[in-house]
């Protein structure tokens, strides 16, 4: 294994870098896109149920199908990393917009009303009260989306671009166990590390959450 690593560390590192890129770029884009979409699901109550249903349907599309059909829809090359990025962004948005909507809906109406009674206008109330109060729920959703993206990237290897997943295909093709094991270990480590980072961020930006009844989400 050490032998394999020292001979192939450039391949492994390149795979790891690509894996991080393919998993996290969709998280960033998806997070930014989900905030307004989720908010619309709260601002316009009639929009909530369609939103939840559409998100559910999108999330249930098998990833391989999405990877294969996106080039047809987008007109991209079958081997373009953009396919993976777009596909995972769709999953992230499907997961996070619902989480954002649920998080905002779960804000105690007493809190929202007292903000209004203090003289908050709508936008400032959203930014200063509702979003921060919903943040523990939103960040919990972000953890799920991140871990799920990190594992889904590997599926992309079946169509030729898949970060650490490529180590799996390589191992299978060569009947060679090392790259498979290294791929598995690295993607588990990556998922654990990303999760840990989000938990730390969560602790730092929602210090109040651990005093809430039920002990918060961390």
């Amino acid at each position, binding site marked *: 294994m050490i032998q394999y690593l020292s001979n192939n560390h450039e391949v492994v590192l390149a795979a790891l870098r690509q894996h991080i890129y393919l998993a996290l770029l969709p998280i960033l884009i998806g997070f930014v896109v989900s905030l307004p979409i989720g908010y619309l699901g709260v601002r316009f109550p009639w929009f909530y149920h369609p939103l939840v249903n559409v998100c559910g349907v999108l999330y249930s599309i098998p990833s391989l199908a999405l990877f294969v059909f996106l080039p047809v829809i987008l007109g991209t090359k079958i081997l373009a990393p953009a396919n993976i990025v777009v596909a995972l962004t769709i999953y992230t948005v499907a997961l996070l917009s619902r989480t954002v909507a649920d998080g905002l809906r779960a804000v105690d109406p007493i*809190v929202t009303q*007292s903000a209004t009674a203090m003289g908050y*206008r709508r936008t400032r109330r959203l930014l200063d009260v509702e979003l921060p109060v919903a943040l523990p729920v939103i960040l919990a959703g972000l953890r799920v989306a991140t871990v799920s993206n990190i594992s889904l990237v590997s599926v992309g290897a079946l169509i030729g671009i898949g970060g650490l997943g490529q180590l799996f295909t390589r191992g299978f093709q060569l009947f060679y166990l090392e790259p498979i094991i290294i791929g598995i270990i690295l993607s588990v480590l990556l998922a654990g590390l990303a999760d840990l980072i989000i938990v730390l961020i969560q602790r730092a930006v929602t210090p109040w959450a651990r*005093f*809430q009844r039920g002990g918060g989400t961390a």
Partner: protein
Amino acid sequence: MITFEDVVKIYPGGSTAVDHLSMELPTGKMTVLVGPSGCGKTTSLRMINRMVEPTSGRILIDGRDVAGQDEALLRRGIGYVIQHAGLFPHKTVLDNVATVPLLLGKTRREARAAALELLERVGLAAEFAGRYPAQLSGGQQQRVGVARALAADPPVMLMDEPFSAVDPVVREGLHREFLRLQQDLGKTIAMVTHDIDEAIKLGDRVAVFRQGGHLAQFGTPQELLEQPVDDFVAEFVGRDRGLRSLSFDTAADLPVSPLTDGGAELVLDEAGRPVGWRLGGVVQPTAGVFTKADSLRMVTDLAIMSPVGVAVRVGADGTADGLVRHHDLVDFLATRRDRRAAEQEA
């Protein structure tokens, strides 16, 4: 002054929450809106800061119709306290209290300085400033709620069952502190409660509501106790209202008899202060003493508790200067009742 002019609120469902309400809440006084649940108290309160819009009629604060004013600006000038405090869970106690000054454009430093002062005023030590609401007891949260409402020194305060969710002992303390605070600040306050005793204790004026959003009676606590306009109000203020109404009159006009008329010897110390009654060779303590400034209720209580049925009055220096006997008290209360009835006729 907050003026309700023929205000009606009918919710979309069709139920009439407030029915042709007209009343005036005087400046610098506390008016308590009281009545059974669902009779439109909260709705009335929330129409003052436009959290609810009336179906018809007008509400004016110091002569200005609230309907014409910018909602957010109007609300920043009106303190608001609710039952479970409604504190922002993600902000420290200090930042909760600093909310309205910040909205009004104060710097963070100024707002926090004002907040710290307010926290002290409501009896919370500075050590609470950095805590989060979830780390406080219900009573402490309620204090923070009051401080937050007062932080920008608004002339008007709205309070919706502010003391209902805390246990009776804590509530008692909050009442005392709040009355002292209000004595200093003299805010124009509209407070909602379903507890008539709280209304009578805290209110300078009391508005009794009945089902269907009708104002049944508006007046001072004493008027309510002594002259309820109908059976509903009489029933609502309670059976012992005669006794309770004695809390609002002092003993200033109550005639006293000489110290020798007690039917037993009143024992005084060398300074002339009452010690007790000599009964069959032993001295039994008086049940307590009263001054001209004490309430008739206290005098009645002393007369009942006294071993000889006599309440002892003392002067400012604590020396005994007169007696009130049981039957004298009864006679006085009877003439007082007749006089009031006559006043009401006139």
